[in-house]
């Protein structure tokens, strides 16, 4: 398989975006058009006149990728090129869960034949690790910092996959960078399903989360093994597959290796906060039936 995502880009060592883009293109192949909103991925892969993209790629703005993709798809249809060429969006959590929400909602309601891949690294990393709607409970970011009277982000993650399911999408899946084959299969399934489809990829950011650059996959795997990030597929509104956890690990193992949760282990009352996070994981186990 020809590598469609060139190295030499300006991502950090251990960058989740580079991995997500590479896996997405391994699933999509050559005959696709990629739309990217503003964000790390856009900045690190396309400093003019360089580009990492071996497929046609377009960036317009931060909040409109789904609308741009709608237009690309409509143009291909009008020009009779839509049978072969697939249209994908690869965007971060900020441009998906927050500022891009309106244009995503519109595109999914209209039923365009597009696949949207959200590379969720749980904060605005491109601008310096500010909180987004994807930031998890108690994570310390530069705009939700832990401090004497704060444990960090006071709210849980917005449940974007559920919002997409509510739009009637025929295929919605969660994926993880720790399981590339699973992710590639899901992106391919999304592409092969007609209509607007969605893959939400849990994507640890070495810089923003604060872990060693060699640990991206390890952190991603711990999110799955602690039930902080369930992996599932929902087709036409019905849960059709859930990846089971053999033995659920305590959330401390996931939290302890990340700087953004460090305060939970040093501040008074941190124990209670960790219990709340354990509760979130345990609720995931129950909701998705994660354990055999």
């Amino acid at each position, binding site marked *: 398989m020809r590598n469609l995502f060139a190295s030499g880009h300006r991502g950090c060592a251990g960058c989740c975006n580079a991995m997500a883009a590479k896996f997405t293109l391994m699933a999509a192949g050559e005959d696709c058009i990629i739309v990217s909103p503003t964000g790390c991925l856009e900045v690190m892969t396309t400093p003019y006149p360089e580009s990492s993209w071996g497929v*046609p*790629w377009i960036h*317009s703005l931060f909040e409109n990728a789904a609308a*741009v993709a*709608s237009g*690309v798809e*409509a*143009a291909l249809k009008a020009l009779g090129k839509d049978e072969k060429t697939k249209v994908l969006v690869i965007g971060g959590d900020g441009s998906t869960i927050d500022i891009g929400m309106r244009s995503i909602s519109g595109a999914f309601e209209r039923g365009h034949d597009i696949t949207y891949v959200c590379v969720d690294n749980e904060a605005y990393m491109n601008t310096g690790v500010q909180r987004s709607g994807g930031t998890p409970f108690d994570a310390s970011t530069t705009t939700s910092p832990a401090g004497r009277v704060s444990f960090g982000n006071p709210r849980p993650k917005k449940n974007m996959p559920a919002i997409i399911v509510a739009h009637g999408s025929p295929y919605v899946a969660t994926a993880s960078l720790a399981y590339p084959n699973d992710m590639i299969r899901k992106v391919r399934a999304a592409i092969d399903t007609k209509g607007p489809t969605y893959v939400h990829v849990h994507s640890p950011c070495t810089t923003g989360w604060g872990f060693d650059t060699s640990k991206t996959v390890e952190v991603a795997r711990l999110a799955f093994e602690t039930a902080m990030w369930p992996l599932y597929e929902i087709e036409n509104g019905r849960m059709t597959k859930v990846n089971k956890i053999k033995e659920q690990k305590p959330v401390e193992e996931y939290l302890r290796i990340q700087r953004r949760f460090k305060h939970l282990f040093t501040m008074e009352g941190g124990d209670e906060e960790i219990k709340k996070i354990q509760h979130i994981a345990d609720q995931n186990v129950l909701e998705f039936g994660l354990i055999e």
Partner: protein
Amino acid sequence: MISTRKIAKEKMKVVEGSYAVAHAVKVCRPNVISAYPITPQTHIVEDLSQFMADGEIPNCEYINVESEFSAISALVGASAAGARTYSATTSQGLELMHEVLFNVSGMRLPMVMTVANRAVSAPINIWNDQQDSISQRDTGWIQMHAEDPQEAADMVAQSYRISEDRDVLLPVMPCMDAFVLSHVYEPLVLLEQDLVEEYLPPFEPEFVLDPKNPRTFGAFADPSIYTEFRYLQAKAMDKALLKIEEAANEFNEVFGRYYGGLIDEYEKEDAEIVIVAMGSIIGTVKDVIDKLRSKGEKVGLLKVRSFRPFPIEAIRKNLKDAKVIVALDKNISMGLNEGALCTEIKACLYNTDINAPVIGFMIGHGGRDVPPSTINYIIDQARNVMSLGITVESQFTDVKEEMI
């Protein structure tokens, strides 16, 4: 060349201005239309929707988007993918698009979007002035203003010619005044399909999103290269000056109608007082001039058709013998307290030998009617300036003092 209309009466139909524009769009054969309804643009998009429902626009997709922001964003993708694109909007919708407008022109994507000029909120007001499009002045769009429904319709075809020209590759905003032009029924000629095909070549962009020849669109530019992108965009605007003239001249050759290229003039020959204006107010001004000319008064009109690019040379040449210049503005730059046309006319005469006084009148805000008596009042003021000099450089024309 003075405006001409060789119109065979048997070809004329009485239609609404919006229908004439929608029909013009149809015969230009767009591939992707994307729009969000907003008064008073609605009739244009409703008529286009009906054409789609009746199968009258082949090889076209109509996207019913959830906002103006997405309307124009979808066209970014569509134009980059090689589609001829169209949208229409006004007022709040246009303001909502503001960020994307820069993006379209910066990416050098051809596009045509009719603006049915309307006032902006607050207070909310659905009627005509030109604050909406004037506020988009620096977005890099070519902005043209039509005088009547026929010109608004014809301007659609001209806009595609200009926008898609490889020396230009800039989006075009043909503007028509809300209600006064969009909702008025007039006898006019609907653009003929065969003539449009003769006039407007198919859209064949050099660079498109194509898996066989993958390219990167919308890369980021750091300080070492950003200036050059802006420079090339400015150069394209310069080239558009000529292309706008060509598009108007060739339109005249094919269709027999001409409204000026960058500018037009009326009773200008020996005019001492010259009124400068844009859009539907032109008709009223012409009527007033006719009456004054019959009394031997030397009053003329300069119609600015292209607001961006601003035709500096053409305007200088046209105004060189004027004794008093009067700019009419359906907009205001708050804080400067004059309209954009007034500011720009003054700016373009500076550093020249033309020393005629320029006075500005802000007029017709939020759809306030502009009767001939208001134009007569303005011309009276201009006469005073001719004899006494300027006392007030820029002023509101029709404020009801008793309500303040």
